[in-house]
Every structure is written in C-alpha cells, then in structure tokens.
C-alpha cells in the first residue's frame, strides 16, 4: 500500500519505521461513548473529540477513535493496516459468536464471502426487482396517506425493509416478527463492551437459533437469496461453515440499518419544509437527499478495526494490535470537509460521505437500501402534498454505535 499516488488518501498514513512505545500519544479523553445519552445524541460528543484531535485515545475503553474525514477515509481504504478480522478487533470469545462474515474478515476470505452477497445485492442484480419494490412502497404509502397521521417508524420505515428483505431471502411468513428485535439485539454484539451484553444474551441466542433454523433448503423458498447461499456451499465456492454467518449478514445488516436510514430521511424532510418543497419541485433531488441524510444521520456511527502494525494516523501513533473505532458519524460532520456540516442541505449531494463505509467493506447492501428508501420517498412525492412533524421524535439510545429513531409521528395530506 506504499505505492499510492499523491491524490490517494492513504498518504495520510505514514509507516512507522521503529516501534514506538505503547504509550498513547494521541489526546486522551475520559468519556463513555457507549453511554445511553451519548448513543442517543452522539454529535456533541463527536464534535468535542474531533476538535481535540484527528485521533483521540479513549482511556475508558483502551481504544483509539479516528474522528476526522481524511483520516477516517484513509483508514477504511487500507485493510492491510486496519484489519476487520473479528478475533483481532473483538477478541477470541466475541469472534466465535460473530462468526466469519464479510464484515469480520479481511481479504481474500472477505472477497469470497462478499461475492456471494453482492451477486444478489449489486445494482445490476436489483434491476429486475425495482418494479416490485416500488409497488410495495406505493401500497404502504397509500395506507399511510389514508390514515393521515401516523407513527412512521411502525407504519412505513419498519415494514418496507422487513417485508422486502424477508421475501428476497425467501423466509417463511411465519416467525418473521423476530427479525427486527432479533437483528437489533445482534447489533449489540458489535460493541466491544461485552458486559453490557449480558442481559440481552438470551434473545441473542434465540435469534442465532432462528438463523440456524432458517439456513435450510426445507424452509427457504427455492429461488431466494438464502437458497443461493446453500448453492454456493454445494458449488464449493464457500465452506459449509460460511452459510449461517452469511444468512446472518442479510438478516442483521439488511434490516435495521435501512429502517433507520428511511426514518432519518423522512424526519429530515419533515423538519425541513424548504427541502420537502425543493424535492416536490424537482424529484430528481431524491438521490442527493438520500446521500445527505445518510451523511448527517447515518445509522452506523462507527466501524471497528485493529492496527496490524504501529501506524501513524494524522500526527499520532496507534500501536500494533490495538482496537480502533473509525467514527464515520464524526467524519461525516467534519467541517474540514463539509461546510455547515450539521445542516441537512438537500442540494449538497455528498456522494463521498462515509456513512455506508468505504472501500473494501463498503456497504454491500447499499444498492438495495437506496432502492427501498427511494421507492418510499418517490411514492410520498406522488401521493402527498404536505409532510409535517406531529409530535416529539424519539431517538434510539440503547444500541451502542448505532443511531436510529424509535418514534416518528408525522402527518400527511393527500395531493
């Protein structure tokens, strides 16, 4: 990775010739980034850390946090230096629980596992699904407009991804109610603070058992994505033990993230009448609005890595083997990269945001997420005249590292 051109972001990273002491030379802060108030509203905390340094050492959890855009992007682009392998990032015990997925492995295994998923989720594979996703979104929105005042998380944002992804995987109708709460529970396992996991462990196990039960030709629809995983095992493209973790990738990463991406986009439109008006006047802004909403309010606020060598990031040394959090939530609001970073600007079109990750581990389901979210927003544009807040919005504060909305009351008037 030392042959990058001048314009490549990896230049922010410098090889450290001699091993430094393991002393943390980055500015240190004693802050619990997993505490509920910080999870519920992470942006003040990110702003404080970002101004302190491009890399900040969290003494409470012995972790280095990368806070600024350039450094975060460079880190995500360099998988050799910044490993995603779960045993490095989370320790052996958690690694056993998480299994080997595209999210928790490095190339070359990563590429094989990702390939099975992306074969289905890449935009070219999604083309044939567009019509059915649009039609389903239109039904949901028609019901919502009929009702007039809705709690949009329950009536729209949760239904769209759960229905869509469950159908695509080919899951039986029965038992789907476990998908959202189970997936959310599993996200807790990505927190390095395993003591917080203890009360939730029974439901983590319940969902893990559901996934194992579903990884079976007898229960899956033969033409679904789940069966395609089992086919890949039979073809010898992946190993037997890869099937269940790949199913869990669809089930954990493919639902809650889209639910909240949609929730935040709706909320940003409801809170910004000028943006809604601009979108009504020019529906092609729907793409820009999607990227901008993910930039200011991405569900995934942080990504985990581990340093495979002593490495200098910004002006600070992160020692080999230590855990790193790349705060994409912070990077996406870095004023060094985006002007007025806290403002939702529907015209901005920030296609270089890091809200869906970047490079090797860039979100494999981003095409599907865009399809689902835009299907709902375009149905709203067709059917709705006004979209307004209708009560206090409540934010999720119980899943460390993830932002989300738990209650989103809005009122809609028909065109």
């Amino acid at each position, binding site marked *: 990775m030392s042959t990058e*051109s*001048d*314009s*490549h972001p990896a230049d922010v990273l410098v090889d450290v010739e001699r091993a430094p002491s393991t002393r943390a030379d980055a500015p240190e802060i004693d802050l619990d980034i997993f505490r509920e108030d910080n999870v519920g509203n992470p942006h003040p905390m990110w702003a404080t850390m970002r101004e302190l340094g491009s890399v900040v050492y969290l003494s409470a959890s012995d972790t280095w946090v990368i806070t600024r855009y350039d450094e975060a992007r460079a880190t995500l*682009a360099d998988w050799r230096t910044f490993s995603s392998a779960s045993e490095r990032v989370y320790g052996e015990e958690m690694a056993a629980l998480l299994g080997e997925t595209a999210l928790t492995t490095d190339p070359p295994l990563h*590429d094989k596992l990702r390939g099975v998923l*992306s074969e289905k989720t*890449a*935009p*070219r594979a999604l*083309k044939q699904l567009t019509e059915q996703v649009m039609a389903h979104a239109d039904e949901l929105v028609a019901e919502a407009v009929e009702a007039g005042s809705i709690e949009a998380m329950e009536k729209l944002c949760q239904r769209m991804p759960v229905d869509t992804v469950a159908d695509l995987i080919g899951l039986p109708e029965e038992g789907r109610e476990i998908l959202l709460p189970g997936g959310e529970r599993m996200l807790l396992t990505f927190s390095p603070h395993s003591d917080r996991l203890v009360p939730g462990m029974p439901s983590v196990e319940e969902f893990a058992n559901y996934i194992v039960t579903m990884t079976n030709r007898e229960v899956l629809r033969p033409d679904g994505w789940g069966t395609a995983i089992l086919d890949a095992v039979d073809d010898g493209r992946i190993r037997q033990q890869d099937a269940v973790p790949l199913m869990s990738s669809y089930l954990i990463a493919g639902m809650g993230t889209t639910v909240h991406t949609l929730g935040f986009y709706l909320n940003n439109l409801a809170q910004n009448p000028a943006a809604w008006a601009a979108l009504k006047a020019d529906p092609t802004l729907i*793409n820009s609005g999607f990227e901008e909403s993910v930039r200011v309010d991405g569900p995934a606020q942080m990504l985990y890595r581990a340093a495979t060598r002593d490495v200098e990031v910004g002006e600070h040394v992160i020692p080999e083997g230590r855990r790193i959090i790349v705060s994409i939530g912070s990077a996406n609001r870095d004023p060094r990269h985006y002007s007025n970073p806290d403002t939702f600007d529907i015209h901005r079109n920030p*296609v*270089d945001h890091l809200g*869906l*990750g*970047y*490079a*090797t581990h*860039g*979100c*494999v389901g*981003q*095409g599907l997420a865009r399809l689902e979210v835009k299907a709902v927003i375009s149905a709203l544009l067709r059917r709705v005249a006004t979209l307004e807040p209708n009560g206090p919005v409540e934010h999720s504060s119980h899943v460390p590292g993830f932002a989300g909305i738990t209650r989103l009351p809005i009122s809609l008037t028909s065109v």
Partner: protein
Amino acid sequence: MSHIELDRERCEGHGTCEQIAPNIYQLDDEGLVSILVDQPLPDELVGAAEAGARVCPLAALRVVDGS
C-alpha cells in the same frame, strides 16, 4: 501522464463515478463500469477522472500518475 486503474473485481455497478464524470465513466450493458476515454488521459480530463474515481464507494477506481 496519468491513467485510470480499474479493479474490475471490486466494481459492483453503483454508478457514482458516472454520476460525477459521465464523459469518462459509464456503466455498460452488464451494469459494470467502462472507461470511455483513451489512456493515458489527456491533461484536461485528469481532474474529472480523479473526481469520478474518488467517489467510488468501493475504491475500485484510481487515477495514477506516471509511467
């Protein structure tokens, strides 16, 4: 002299490159990126090529300087 390096294995066809630099990148019939211009890049296209490469969500594109 600059040229575009494409890691075809990484391209999943999100089309961000085409959105930013449609005169240089285009998704082909299979939904994967193709490069519309001759290489090495004429100087006047380097800026646009870099802008399109920069926004690839999977870092499949890179404009490299030199031989």
